């Protein structure tokens, strides 16, 4: 029997509801920004939380997928947080977030090239050396075909995993969003990834957006419910990944009643279990 775990992103606004529903939430993922990174008081509070339930720390600001070396001061700040909180694991995005002194305030997909694979691998090594553990690395959603790319997403990801010791936090909604925007089959890409390197899964929602030309793209915004095709992808994960995975629902605003979020966690458990059953029959 494989014991997958299902949880959600922790937000202060949801804290009381999460604590009250601990029997239906296996883990929480905390995004350290601003106060979270700097305040030892917040670190202590997170440590208390981490003693109560499994906590993962999910970075958004290191910018590992950059041709520039990740900032040592940021890494040391992150290391203090990890040391204080003692989470089960930590993760970061395969994105750049600053360049040439410009802060993007968001995650930008890097050019998919051999150069960025080498630079990202080197940044992952730097981060692991300072923090003391390798991050899980997450595929990002992009609304723009990453400028300067020579490789497709599938190839870039596979080569990066081959070149690094980090395992994959596979965001199924990011994969779905990119497939929608750039016309590939998310299920085919998912099946091509090394299943033994997939450790954690993200689910989220998004919305269509329109350019001035009228052209439509799909935005990963974490403000909407998980769309049906993402649960289908989760079934494939259940079918193909041979070990337990952690599944995290990311909801960062426009919060519905908490029961509505719990219902999405339940639906994720059902999708995973269906995939696990299919995997057992196939083997």
């Amino acid at each position, binding site marked *: 029997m494989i014991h997958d775990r299902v949880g959600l992103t922790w937000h202060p606004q949801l804290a009381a509801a999460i604590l009250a529903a601990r029997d239906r939430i296996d883990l929480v993922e905390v995004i350290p920004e601003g*106060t979270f990174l700097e305040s030892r008081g917040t670190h202590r509070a997170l440590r208390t939380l981490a003693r109560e339930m499994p906590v993962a720390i999910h970075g958004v600001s290191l910018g590992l997928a950059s041709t520039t070396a990740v900032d040592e001061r940021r890494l040391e700040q992150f290391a203090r947080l990890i040391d204080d909180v003692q989470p089960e694991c930590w993760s970061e995005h395969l994105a750049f977030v600053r360049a*040439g002194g410009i802060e993007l305030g968001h995650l930008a997909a890097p050019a998919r090239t051999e150069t960025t694979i080498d630079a990202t691998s080197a940044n992952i090594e730097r981060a692991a050396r300072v923090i003391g553990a390798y991050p899980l690395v997450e595929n990002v959603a992009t609304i*723009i075909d990453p400028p300067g790319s020579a490789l497709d997403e599938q190839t870039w990801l596979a080569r990066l995993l081959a070149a690094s010791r980090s395992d994959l936090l596979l965001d199924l909604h990011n994969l779905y969003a990119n497939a929608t925007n750039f016309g590939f089959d998310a299920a085919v890409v998912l099946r091509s990834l090394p299943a033994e390197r997939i450790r954690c899964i993200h689910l989220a929602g998004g919305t269509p957006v329109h350019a001035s030309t009228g052209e439509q793209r799909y935005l990963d915004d974490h403000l909407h419910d998980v769309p049906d095709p993402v649960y289908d992808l989760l079934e494939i994960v259940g079918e193909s990944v041979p070990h337990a995975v952690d599944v995290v629902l990311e909801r960062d605003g426009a919060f519905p009643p908490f029961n509505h979020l719990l219902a999405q966690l339940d639906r994720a458990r059902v999708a995973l279990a269906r995939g696990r059953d299919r995997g057992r029959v196939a083997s």
Partner: protein
Amino acid sequence: MSPNFEAFIARLYVDAAARRRFLADPLREAAAADLTEEEIAAAVRIDRVGLELAAVTFAQKRRRRRRHGPVMAAALSYWRRLVKRPFSG
């Protein structure tokens, strides 16, 4: 791709005036940015729809963060008090 190219793209994402100049004459702007021939060609081929939407959505994200700052601080303060109490079933 080089750090220069990343910086060039980052500016296009966040700086509306730089983006307007670039879209009016991509080759001239890229050539003036100390990029390699390969990077200039990549810049000229940029996904224009994606660039417009990336700029809009990145700006929305930055605005949302600024707006939510005070709400987050209050919620965080409440949570710190909550978590100080012993957990019970």
